């Protein structure tokens, strides 16, 4: 690496860095600045200090969105991880052991392939799919069945207290398979002798799960929690497409991304939308820092 190193290094770095700074770093930096102005796109932006942030504090839609992120942040990881862990355990160590070799249940490979598939689909496509599944009359998959049995149709997306959970259900539907595969990889790296030894001591499957698998999988769980938490702070595509008029009914499913989009590209309130973006950024950052701190514990070496 002697002669001509610097021309090569610069030549290789120039295009990626230029592109990245133009479309990523520069907009991020500007966002903080725009959030301090009352810019509406036409006249020159005027500096208003923290006015936008003060207005955020009185904005009902903003607080609703923050509240929904709180619900998503608890429900999405908890439900997804619980289901995925259960399935991953079944698929990897649920079956009988023969000759010390841990086996999953019959058909484990098939299940893993099927469960993972929704991950390949775009969220927007899945949202349209579930719009049809949730339809409030005979043409909906669920209500068509209910009404065949003479039951009242369930208004999944129209009832304010049900709409957010209907959306969370779709997010869980998509995510579970990914985490089954992720946890399976983690479980596969746990040495079989540990299970064998525990079983020889008479540990049941339930004990195996809680006393062996779970502690040894802690690092993977932490990663899963952070991933799902970040997903809980986004949720734009699903809310924009699936919910009634973008975050409805009456703001019952709105999220910050939805409010940012609406304020910026419908109302042209660029300064205000940027302030929401900054708030979202600090929320995400706080979450990531808190998760890493709270879930920190000594990882078990094996």
């Amino acid at each position: 690496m002697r002669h001509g190193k610097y021309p090569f290094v610069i030549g290789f770095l120039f295009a990626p860095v230029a592109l990245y700074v133009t479309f990523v770093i520069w907009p991020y930096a500007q966002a903080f600045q725009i959030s301090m102005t009352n810019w509406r796109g036409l006249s020159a932006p005027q500096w208003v200090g923290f006015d936008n942030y003060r207005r955020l504090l009185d904005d009902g839609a903003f607080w609703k969105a923050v509240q929904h992120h709180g619900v998503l942040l608890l429900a999405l990881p908890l439900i997804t991880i619980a289901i995925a862990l259960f399935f991953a355990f079944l698929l990897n160590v649920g079956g009988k052991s023969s000759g010390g070799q841990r086996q999953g249940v019959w058909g484990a490979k098939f299940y893993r392939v099927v469960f993972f598939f929704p991950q390949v689909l775009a969220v927007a496509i899945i949202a349209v799919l579930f719009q049809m599944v949730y339809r409030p009359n005979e043409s909906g998959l669920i209500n068509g069945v209910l009404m065949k049995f003479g039951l009242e149709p369930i208004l999944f997306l129209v009832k304010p207290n049900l709409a957010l959970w209907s959306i969370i259900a779709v997010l869980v539907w998509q995510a579970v398979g990914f985490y089954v595969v992720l946890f399976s990889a983690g479980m596969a790296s746990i040495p079989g002798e540990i299970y064998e030894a525990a079983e020889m001591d008479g540990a049941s499957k339930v004990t195996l799960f809680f006393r062996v698998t779970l502690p040894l999988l802690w690092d993977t769980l932490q990663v899963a929690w952070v991933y799902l938490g970040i997903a809980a702070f986004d949720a734009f595509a699903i809310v924009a497409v699936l919910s009634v008029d973008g975050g409805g009914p009456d703001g019952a499913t709105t999220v910050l991304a939805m409010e940012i989009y609406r304020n910026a590209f419908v109302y042209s309130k660029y300064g205000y939308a940027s302030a929401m973006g900054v708030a979202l950024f600090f929320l995400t950052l706080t979450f990531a820092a808190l998760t890493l701190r709270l879930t920190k514990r000594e990882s078990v070496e094996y």
Partner: protein
Amino acid sequence: MNPQSTLPPPAALPPKTGDPSAPAGPGRKGPRSEVRFFASLGHVALAVWAVIVIVPILWTFLAAFKNTSEIFSSPWTLPAELRWENFSRAWTKAHVGRYFLNSVIVVSCSTFLTMLLGSMAAYVLARYKFWGNRAVYFLFVSGLAFPVFLALVPLFFVVKNLGLLDTHTGVVLVYTAYSLPFTVFFLAAFFKTLPSSVAEAGMIDGCGHSRLFFQVMMPMAKPGLISVAIFNIIGQWAQYQLPLVLLSNAKDKWVLTQGIADISVNAGYEADWSGLFAALTIAILPMILVYALFQRQIQAGLTSGAVK
């Protein structure tokens, strides 16, 4: 080796009162029946979830062949005949064909560009010592911590000022820029693991820096490149918010996610549900084919970000 030594420390496996730490005594079910009970319960749960995953998709495929009255009569009846005209209507009149092609063009260009620029940057950052190396690396990696929505407004104006609004070029460049943090982060780690002996041998043979990269290092990094490429293809194919902002006024340039969402809104006005089901089928079916062919690589690629 003594199997006891591989047991986790007591903190992870404490003896619990009532826990059957002693060999199975009287009154305890034999391990065989417990296994059988657990396995059958597990089977039911797994099968139920498989049904929950498969049925909505299968139902969409079936409904794509129905007419409106069949769709409203019962979700479980089969279509009376295979109405292929639903598909031709979706493909031409609802422009699904156009949207699909747009997605293919945009994602293939942006993934190619991401891989090229990402691996160039990652390679230099991973294997060359120079002033500012760490700074550039952290500049890229810091992008992982920022939500795209923070940048949405300024990004719109940057693209607009460059005259790239409502163009595929703009979308490709933006996709590429936002894919760089993960790509650089992952590939830099990968390039670091490659042995330096081969590179040194190449240098001694008079191989230039760029030739070394394209002809020696890239082939060696193939497994890592494939993983990241799959990760990027799936991620960029699924993009919805960026094209929504960057292509809003050019309907003929829309990508598939945008198009399908729009068709679903219009289907409500026109009551063309079978057309919407056909459009959804056209969007989902190719993904099933691709997934069936590359299932192993896709699973590895998508989880590669989490398992280091």
